[in-house]
């Protein structure tokens, strides 16, 4: 086993990995940029090294392969955990680690490269019999050709620019009669946008669900799947809420999707933790989307439903140990839901809201896990992804898990910066979400609606409370208050932290 692991990341995932190291008796090494000197991962690690004397730009710091390896070398780290984001899916980095004799905790550079290349991945996966969204094998040269393919795969179909992305050169076609004009439209738009008019054709999946399978493969050829996660609640392709199991899952479908995911991993000679993402249609047909070759943000929901520690298992696999269990040992129980808490303002187009957290009250009690990267008094920097924390609720059933996470979100208070707790209050109480009527377009539809006016109005009480706070503030500041005798009703010693030493003797 390793004695020392460097964590090439920041925020909650760095803290998550540091905790795993602590529990495994392994020394943890944090790295940090200039603005992250007081970040939680620096406080929690056994060792901490600054990446750059002054810069906090990702390229100079958390993405700086040379510098990361230099620190790892100098402090004697035997392995590097990349977390997610940053260098976690960078095959060059994985290769550079290997060359430097430092174990990269993740798949090999080869497996990463294969999965990073859309066309190669597709070829390899098709050879392994993995289902894709049906479509033309390549570009379709003419309306006639498009018509033939569409007839074969069935309407509705989607025309897509081969060189494309971002919605340009895309046309949804619901009936054959609309095909000719859509084909010409897509072609000319593609030409204008990308200088290439090649288009291809795929079956259009209506209201697909995003369901992914967690796999774990050791370096001795064993691979297991740990059930699914449903991540259909997305805003602009960013996951917002994830849960396990999926409400539409059956044991038989789970087995089929799980076995497919294992086939994907095996075809890529994949090792360590990975996630195979699928789209699932209303008939529960599933189609391969991509493989994420790293630990996912949403791994805790799998940890809660399987009772396993994925980071510990990642470390053990990287140290060459065999998986300590077989597929038959994997015991799913209960339901888990994760909310990603961001420093962003849901009332203002989800604008990021960096700044100092002046007050933080975290929820507790049964069925609540929090993986946080911040603390009261921390200034959330503007340089990176504004995720503050992940809150995960667990319960025996989906309903119990939802009740618990709703209760926990209601207990949570973050002062000083804007955050998306109000968004979760809304989603978690939404009838469609409660009924699991969700797909990847669900949240955008919800956000397009006006929010219900809250029935729970305490404006008068808020006005009174504002006066009470002002009374204690001026009392604490030693100012003359207009009405003597009011200030002492809310005793100064209670209010002012500086005076709290009195409290211990009272």
């Amino acid at each position: 086993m390793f004695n020392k692991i460097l964590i090439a990341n920041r925020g909650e995932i760095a803290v998550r990995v540091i905790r795993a190291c602590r529990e495994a008796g392994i020394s943890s090494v944090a790295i940090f940029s200039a603005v992250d000197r007081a970040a939680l991962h620096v406080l929690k690690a056994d060792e901490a090294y600054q990446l750059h004397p002054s810069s906090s730009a990702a390229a100079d710091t958390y993405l700086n392969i040379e510098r990361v390896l230099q620190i790892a070398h100098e402090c004697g780290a035997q392995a590097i955990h990349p977390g997610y984001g940053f260098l976690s899916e960078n095959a060059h980095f994985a290769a550079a680690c290997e060359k430097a004799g430092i174990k990269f905790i993740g798949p090999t550079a080869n497996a990463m490269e294969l999965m990073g290349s859309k066309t190669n991945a597709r070829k390899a996966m098709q050879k392994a019999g993995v289902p894709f969204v049906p479509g033309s094998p390549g570009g379709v040269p003419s309306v006639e050709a498009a018509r033939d393919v569409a007839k074969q795969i069935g309407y509705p179909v989607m025309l897509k620019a081969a060189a494309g992305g971002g919605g340009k050169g895309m046309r949804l076609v619901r009936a054959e009669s609309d095909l000719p004009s859509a084909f010409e439209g897509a072609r000319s738009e593609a030409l204008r946008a990308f200088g290439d008019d090649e288009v291809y054709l795929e079956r259009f999946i209506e209201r697909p669900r995003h369901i992914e399978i967690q796999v774990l493969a050791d370096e001795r050829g064993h691979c297991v799947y740990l059930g699914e996660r449903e991540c259909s609640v997305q805003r602009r392709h960013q996951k917002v809420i994830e849960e396990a199991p999926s409400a539409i899952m059956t044991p038989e479908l789970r087995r089929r999707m799980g076995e497919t995911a294992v086939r994907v991993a095996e075809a890529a000679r994949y090792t360590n933790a990975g996630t195979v993402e699928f789209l699932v249609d209303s008939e529960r047909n599933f189609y391969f989307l991509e493989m994420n070759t790293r630990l996912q943000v949403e791994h805790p929901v799998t940890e809660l439903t399987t009772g396993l520690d994925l980071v510990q298992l990642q470390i053990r696999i990287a140290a060459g140990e065999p998986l300590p269990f077989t597929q038959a040992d994997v015991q799913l129980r209960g339901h888990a839901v994760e909310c990603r808490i961001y420093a962003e303002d849901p009332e203002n187009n989800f604008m990021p809201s960096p700044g100092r957290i002046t007050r933080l009250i975290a929820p507790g009690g049964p069925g609540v896990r929090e993986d946080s990267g911040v603390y009261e008094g921390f200034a959330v920097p503007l340089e990176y992804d504004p995720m503050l924390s992940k809150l995960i609720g667990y319960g025996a059933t989906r309903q119990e898990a939802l009740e618990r996470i709703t209760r926990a979100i209601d207990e949570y208070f973050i002062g000083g910066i804007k955050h998306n707790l109000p968004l979760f209050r809304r989603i978690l109480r939404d009838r469609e979400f409660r009924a699991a009527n969700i797909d990847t377009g669900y949240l955008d539809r919800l956000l397009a609606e006006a929010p219900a006016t809250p029935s729970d109005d305490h404006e008068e009480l808020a006005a009174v409370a504002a006066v009470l706070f002002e009374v204690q503030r001026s009392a604490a500041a030693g100012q003359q208050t207009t009405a003597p005798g009011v200030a002492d009703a809310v005793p100064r010693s209670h209010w002012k932290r500086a005076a709290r030493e009195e409290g211990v003797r009272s």
Partner: protein
Amino acid sequence: MTYEVIIGGKSHRVELQRDPDHPGLWAAHIDGRELRFTAVPAGSDVLSIVVDGRSFQVLREASAAAGDAAPNIVINGRRYTAELRDPRALRSRRTVAEAGGPKKILSPMPGKVIRLLAAEGDRVEAGAGVIVIEAMKMQNELKAPKQGVVKKLPSGVGSAVNAGDVLAIIE
């Protein structure tokens, strides 16, 4: 003592006094209605208020826009920005956002201006994008708070801006 408290543009007159007969009990007269309650501090920036047996955990946070003068009061997860004026002490404070007149677009965060969607002198509709700033790897379009003419755009493309900086004035 008497205060004027403005929440959501609505002004409330709050008169607060202790109940002489029941220690610990307060009486507030707000807009003519009486509210009797007990209130105790429960940690920094937290009050426990019990009104007629109903228990409230009331939190206070400084508002990023207006600071201490108009703190946010949070009750059951809902935020009320409460601007305080004390008529007796004549420590009246200006309202942050007056109705009518020119309106400013303030930068809600530190960042960099990466695009201007309007030029000085342009007519814009309420809600039209005016300026795009980037922070935390995300681009954010700031919109006109009212219909009008863009009077000022002090920061050019590439400028660094701080939270609270005036990015545009719409008149």
